[in-house]
């Protein structure tokens, strides 16, 4: 990193207009800072310039460039278009896709400054995060996603031709309803292949030989007969119950689905799984991208590659992005992930370079280490929102945001303030906030618990109603109907209070003909 600060470089552009050579120039300058000075590690970039309609298109298909056809995407398009036309909603400046090469869409009407900002934000910030964060590495395959989406689109199109649009639409409706219960939350254990099995066996034997002591034989042991598993236990084990991935369970187990229907369910499930890391890293992902663009833009300005005018334009836009209204403000709609993520990362930088006594106490491992980029790269690679907040939310930030924790117990007449930004409250607030970003805590815990395939085949599910919060009744009824349609037999959902195991509520549904053939008895 032999960057002598030369203030005399020519600006990358003047004024608002840009052309393709400008974008190339900006990209190259940013790349120099991002890779050379910040040490980011990114997929090759592909920057695509699009217009308004295409941006609306991308909105309606979760940002993906190609997607199968379904009416719900038409609905989202129509809604966004109407809102956009009425001026109620602006469009994003960019959309970035976790693929290799990393595709970023930039809007044609952005000014040159905005394009620079967007490239720094998406093509380097998000890109680095996608490539390095452990969740993305674990759950997504950036190399294959575009091919897979193309396969999905073509497969569903061919199904429509063969089995009719109505049949495919019904199936997709049902699958979409279960999409939020269609992810594996933990990586599954892979069954070993023969070779590794053999190796493990060999290692065990070697170990046994090494520690062999004949004395052990003489020690009286416990009776080694394990009680035989009951029929119910065997049944559950065979079906891998309990199972929280409902769509997976349907795909593998539903008795009456056709092979093509299983494949369609699989497609929806795999796409849901692909987006699973994104929902867990919203704060970090946006924080990483915002921090990156802020650093890069400042560096470019310092080098003289950005004019003062462009810098002011950038700062205005940046300030809007990281603005956090107070809870009693009319504009308040939850914590802004950009604001939280950006502030936390800036705070880490501060702790590394100018720690206070408080920081020394709270973050002894990084305070004053003077290498903030190294710490941040480690953070971006190894944390998700929940663990990140739990680890790095500093008291100083709690004070800055004025965070407080309110408890709403429906059995009590009033809300109660549990903790505020004071000495006693920091830790509580940190834990409570982290929990808000914990998917396991946030998503409804619904599992298939039992089904007797040899008997009436009624599927039984449990919802462990955390904190006695029940499901939205109307929606639950509709989803249960979809579930019954897929399963082909009756389904029953029990909402259970995890504290007492009492059944709070039950939802039942019987299948309608349409997706699978239903026997009329």
């Amino acid at each position, binding site marked *: 990193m032999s960057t002598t600060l030369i203030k005399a470089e020519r600006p990358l552009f003047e004024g608002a207009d840009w052309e393709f050579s400008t*974008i*190339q120039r900006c*990209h190259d300058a940013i790349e120099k800072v991002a890779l050379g000075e910040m040490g980011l590690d990114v997929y*090759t*970039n*592909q*920057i*695509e*310039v699009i217009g308004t*309609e*295409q941006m609306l*298109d991308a909105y309606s298909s979760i940002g993906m460039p190609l997607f199968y*056809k379904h*009416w*719900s995407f*038409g*609905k989202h*398009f*129509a*809604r966004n*278009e*109407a809102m956009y036309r009425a001026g109620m909603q602006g469009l994003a400046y960019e959309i970035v896709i976790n693929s290799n090469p990393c595709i970023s869409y930039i809007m044609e009407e952005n000014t040159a400054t905005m394009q620079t900002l967007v490239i720094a934000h998406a093509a380097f910030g998000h890109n680095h995060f996608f490539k390095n964060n452990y969740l993305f590495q674990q759950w997504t395959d950036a190399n294959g996603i575009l091919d897979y989406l193309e396969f999905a689109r073509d497969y569903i199109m061919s199904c429509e031709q063969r089995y009719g649009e109505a049949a495919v639409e019904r199936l997709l409706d049902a699958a979409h*309803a*279960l999409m939020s*219960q269609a992810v594996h939350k933990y990586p599954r254990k892979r069954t070993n292949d023969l070779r590794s099995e053999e190796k493990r066996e060999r290692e065990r034997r070697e170990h046994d030989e090494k520690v062999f002591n004949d004395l052990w034989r003489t020690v009286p042991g416990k009776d080694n007969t394990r009680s035989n598993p009951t029929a119910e236990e065997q049944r559950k084990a065979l079906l891998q119950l309990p199972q929280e991935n409902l769509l997976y369970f349907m795909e593998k187990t539903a008795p009456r689905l056709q092979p093509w229907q299983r494949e369609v369910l699989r497609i929806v499930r795999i796409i849901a799984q692909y987006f699973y890391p994104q929902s867990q890293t919203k704060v970090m992902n946006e924080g990483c991208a915002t921090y990156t663009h802020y650093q890069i833009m400042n560096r470019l300005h310092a080098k003289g590659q950005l004019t003062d005018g462009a810098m002011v334009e950038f700062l205005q836009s940046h300030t809007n992005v990281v603005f*956090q209204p*107070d*809870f009693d*403000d009319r504009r*308040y*709609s*939850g*914590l802004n992930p950009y604001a939280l993520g950006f502030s936390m990362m800036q705070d880490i930088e501060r702790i590394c370079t100018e720690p206070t006594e408080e920081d020394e106490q709270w973050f002894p491992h990084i305070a004053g280490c003077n290498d903030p980029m190294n710490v941040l790269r480690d953070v971006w690679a190894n944390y998700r929102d929940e663990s990140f907040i739990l680890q790095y939310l500093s008291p100083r930030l709690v004070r800055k*945001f*004025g*965070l*407080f*924790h*309110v*408890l*709403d117990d*429906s059995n009590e007449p*009033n*809300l*109660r*303030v549990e903790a*505020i*930004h*004071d000495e006693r409250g920091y830790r509580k607030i940190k834990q409570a906030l982290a929990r*808000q970003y914990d998917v396991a805590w946030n998503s409804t815990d619904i599992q298939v618990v039992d089904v007797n395939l040899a008997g009436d085949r009624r599927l039984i599910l449990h*919802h462990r109603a955390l904190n*006695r*919060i*029940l*499901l*939205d*009744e*109307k929606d*639950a009824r509709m*989803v249960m109907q979809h579930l019954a349609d897929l399963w082909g037999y009756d389904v029953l959902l029990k909402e259970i209070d995890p504290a007492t195991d009492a059944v709070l509520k039950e939802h039942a549904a019987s299948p309608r003909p349409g997706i699978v053939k239903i026997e009329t008895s």
Partner: protein
Amino acid sequence: MHIVDRRLNPSGKNLSNRQRFMRRAKSQIRKAVHESAGSRSIKDADEGGEVVLPAQGVHEPSFRRGSGGGIRDYLLPGNKEYIAGDTIQRPPSGGGGGGSEGSPDGEGEDDFRFALSRDEFVDLFLEDLELPDLAKRKVVNAEAMVWHRAGYSVTGSPANLALNRTVRNSLSRRIALRRPKPDELQALRDEIEELNDGSDEERRIRLEAELARKVRRIGLIPYIDPLDVRYKRFDPQPRPVAQAVMFCLMDVSGSMTEHMKDLAKRFYVLLYIFLKRRYKNVDVVFIRHTHQASEVDEDTFFNSPETGGTVVSTALEEMQRVIKDRYNPDSWNIYAAQASDGDNTASDNDKTAALLTKVLLPCCQYYAYLEVGRDSEHFPPGFIRRDSDLWQTYSTIIRNGAPMAMRKVGHRRDIYPVFRELFAKKQGAEAHAE
């Protein structure tokens, strides 16, 4: 790094999703379209534009937590006054402390509004409707003549002279008859000139004789003969008239309530949109009447109250006058829709019937009479409880097979069915006609 310009990609990528969505929500969109049509002015009723759908119809359900009950944690920024242990009064549902809640996907559950294009709007509005057979036949008959080029003729006016064709004929005739060309004459003359020195007297005489023959031949064979002349020919061709006028007649006497006027307006709107789809130009004439009639603009027609008796024939006379002044039945398709509560001065009935059968019906494509009733006295369309004066009068006319239809309407929801009934595709007849 690659930069790709995607702006030139074909647009409308989302069209098929949109069509799927429209099909899915069809019944709701149709309802919304009809409701929104009622609130527009007649002339821009078919402009397309925004419709509002209730959210639950195209709702995508998912397992999500309900909004009430249980123990919930909120973490809010911007604390100013609270300390730990404070209690806050529970805000009325949906406000204040519940800020971090909200629908799971960030989308509101309010009504769903989106824009329809003009074509989508009209298509939905007029699904399965067709002009009645009767009117269709009339449309074909009501023709205007248009002159079309149709080959050449040997007679015609000088203005229509087909110059190219004439010269072409003349050329072929001159070649066929071997009319000498000016070049040939000139060549002969030059040669004779050369021989003037007396070198070859015999040849000179032969050439002079030939020259004389050729000159004579030129005189005999004209450059352009009357036989060559051709004129462009024009044939008259019938063309269906592509313009229509719609007469809205309405009784505005005191007995007509706002509700009745609203019903009438809805019917007029439907008819206007329907005609608009078939004809390029549709004029609308508003005639209101009490015991006297006058032509007014739309706003006055629907909104300004009048008092007086009820003499229907005055409106018919006014319509007759307007037709005579401005809308010649030979070049206009005339449609009329009359709305009334059925009252008429008893002595006027015969005059009304006579005017209709003798004067108006012969020049109208279609005459619809809509008898609007009060909301309370709702009866299914077609069911007649007690016939009003006008109803009885018109019944006799219809019995004699005039191009006229009448219906009773008591409630808004009946308007559209009645309209459909009047204009629904007649499938048997359709098959015959094709």
